[in-house]
């Protein structure tokens, strides 16, 4: 059924994920490194082989699983690379299903990146949401369950908007489901619905509150995966379909600033980093909105750099959480003596996100801002520059200062537990840190991979003016930080965000269900008892006689069989909904593989 021989990297991860639980223990660690490496090599083998592969006929449609071009390649490269790094960082995790969930999640992202029609996109889009929620649930705290369900509900809502949009589009275009530039010049309702589906995954306000909620609660290794894939896959989808959509520029700028404001207020290190994802994805969304070749290059370059430095930051703060069990600034501080390596790696991530010269953010972020100035969109360019001061303020200064320096708020237990993390976590951080510096110091590595390499080759970030501008902004931000450091002292508080509406709205609904609806329900039951039950009992008596005398003999044999099967199924069902969802998702993934590739 495959047009040419072409191996989908998602397939490697899906098949790899299902074999993992059956392997003997000694084989697991090498296997965990080999499978994502194979997926990465598979992507590398496609370089320069642009074209369409994996076309499958399904009913009246031709579904395309493999569109290989400049845009899909740069994202596939970094996604599979991050999968290797994330898996190495999580090598110590013995719960196989965490790895299975993470790999299925990456497979979903790769499926979206390579697909060329909306049906396949939708399928993998949902696979991402349903696989990633387990990375929250596996934290296994009481609140993890609630956070996971909120995450799932929000993403289901986004998925529905996307589905509605693509059905309308199918109607309007007379059956066109191809996933490409959507026609931003003449947007219709379907365009906006599809865009809302994408924007929700990109965490654009007002659809963003799921992100800090879920990423702050995910497992240590789960958060490393989550911070890379969902939002950046959405950026890819936006770049593919919505390049030049003007509304994305103000939305992106608002995102960049919104994340910065909430990061000031945040007391939890990983939630702070999560708010800075919103801020950084804002640059990419704005870049897509500007839509010139330089801007699209910038959005892709920044997504590439962001996946590495944000992964590194989540690994650094995650290792603090892993070792001490704490992630709040008000419970940490002064740890540089205990965790120096984690500090150095986090600092490299912090300098990269802040766009210091020689670090990755410097060569990627500047491209978007330059594209803004180039099209004379001055307010956007200046506000994005303002947000970059905020980025350094928090991720480059506040996070390292209040965890590794500052006032020591550690309890004795926290202090005793603190130490540098196991070798595999340090190796994961080391690889990411190396790549952050490589990207920043040797620009052709990243620039040659971008969708418009000629334009990228003509862009030079290391001019005296740009160096001087960046250093002044960053270093004088540091002056401001140290002058106002008292104002930034951590407060053990949470900040209300827009998830308030559905969290409190959910309670309103529960109240409604408990009080008026339950009351109505009991009225109906009472009425039914008097009017309905009497005749029913008489009839039932007759049937019971009939049953006793006539049917039992036949049925008994059957019942025994059914009971035995039921016993088997019961072992699969612990009665917890999340396990049922897990089995269902696994089943769908297997069915998908069998259908497409068998």
């Amino acid at each position: 059924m495959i047009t040419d021989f072409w191996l989908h990297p998602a397939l490697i991860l899906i098949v790899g994920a299902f074999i993992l639980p059956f392997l003997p223990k000694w084989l697991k660690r090498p296997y965990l490194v080999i499978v994502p490496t194979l997926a990465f090599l598979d992507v590398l083998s496609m370089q320069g082989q642009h074209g369409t592969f994996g076309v499958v006929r399904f009913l009246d449609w031709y579904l395309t699983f493999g569109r290989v071009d400049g845009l899909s390649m740069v994202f596939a490269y970094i996604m599979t690379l991050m999968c290797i790094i994330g898996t190495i960082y999580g090598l110590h995790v013995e719960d196989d299903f965490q790895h299975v969930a993470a790999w299925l999640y990456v497979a979903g992202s790769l499926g979206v990146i390579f697909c060329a029609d909306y049906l396949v996109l939708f399928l993998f889009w949902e696979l991402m949401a349903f696989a990633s929620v387990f990375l929250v649930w596996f934290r296994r705290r009481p609140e993890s369950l609630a956070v996971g369900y909120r995450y799932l509900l929000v993403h289901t809502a986004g998925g529905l908007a996307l589905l509605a949009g693509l059905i309308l589009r199918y109607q309007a275009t007379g059956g066109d489901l191809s996933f490409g530039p959507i026609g931003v010049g003449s947007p219709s309702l379907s365009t906006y619905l599809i865009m809302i589906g994408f924007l929700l995954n990109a965490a654009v306000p007002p659809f963003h509150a799921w992100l800090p909620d879920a990423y702050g609660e995910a497992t240590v290794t789960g958060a490393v995966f989550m911070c890379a894939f969902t939002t950046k896959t959405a950026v890819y989808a936006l770049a593919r379909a919505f390049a030049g959509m003007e509304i994305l520029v103000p939305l992106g700028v608002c995102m960049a600033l919104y994340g910065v404001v909430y990061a000031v207020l945040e007391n939890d290190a990983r939630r702070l980093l999560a708010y800075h994802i919103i801020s950084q994805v804002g640059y990419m969304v704005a870049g897509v909105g500007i839509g010139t070749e330089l801007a699209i290059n910038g959005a892709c370059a920044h997504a590439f750099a962001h996946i590495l430095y944000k992964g590194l930051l989540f690994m650094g703060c995650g290792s603090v959480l892993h070792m001490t069990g704490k992630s709040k600034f008000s419970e940490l501080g002064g740890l540089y003596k205990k965790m120096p390596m984690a500090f150095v790696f986090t600092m490299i991530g912090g300098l990269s996100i802040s766009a210091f010269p020689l670090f990755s953010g410097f060569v990627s972020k500047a491209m978007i801002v330059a594209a803004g100035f180039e099209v004379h969109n001055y307010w956007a360019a200046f506000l994005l520059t303002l947000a970059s001061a905020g980025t350094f303020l928090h991720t480059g200064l506040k996070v390292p200062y209040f965890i590794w320096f500052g006032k020591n708020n550690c309890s004795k237990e926290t202090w005793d537990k603190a130490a540098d993390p196991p070798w595999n976590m340090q190796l994961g951080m080391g690889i990411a840190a190396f790549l952050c510096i490589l990207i920043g110091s040797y620009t052709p590595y990243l620039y040659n991979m971008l969708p418009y390499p000629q334009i990228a080759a003509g862009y030079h970030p290391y001019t005296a003016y740009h160096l001087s501008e960046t250093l002044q902004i960053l270093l004088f931000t540091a002056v401001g930080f140290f002058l106002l450091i008292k104002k930034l002292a951590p407060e053990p508080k949470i900040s209300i965000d827009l998830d308030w509406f559905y969290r409190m709205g959910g309670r309103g609904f529960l109240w409604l269900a408990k009080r008026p609806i339950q009351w109505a329900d009991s009225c109906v039951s009472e009425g039914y008892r008097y009017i309905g039950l009497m005749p029913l009992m008489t009839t039932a008596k007759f049937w019971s006689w009939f049953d006793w005398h006539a049917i039992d003999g036949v049925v008994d044999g059957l019942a025994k069989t059914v009971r035995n099967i039921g016993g088997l199924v019961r072992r699969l069902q612990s009665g917890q909904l999340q396990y049922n969802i897990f089995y269902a998702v696994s089943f769908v993934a297997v069915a998908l593989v069998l259908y497409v590739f068998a």
Partner: protein
Amino acid sequence: MIVKLIDFLRDRLQLVIRLSYVGLALLVAWDVVFVSKEHAHTAAERIPGFWAAFGFIACVVIIIVSKWYGHLGIMTREDYYDN
């Protein structure tokens, strides 16, 4: 090694701070005297030390505005959502 370096610097904190101020002054001086402004996008950027002022003011504005916003009632007790 890293810890030793950090302790070495912390023991001489006042000196480090003074050197940092000297570094900042040199940076602005370099910008004013040597850096060509032909790549500047707007006229405002030709003001000497424009980006230094921009960075400092941006930082102060971000902190003050965010804290003001947070204390409007957005920041609340940690068990706010608990039943």
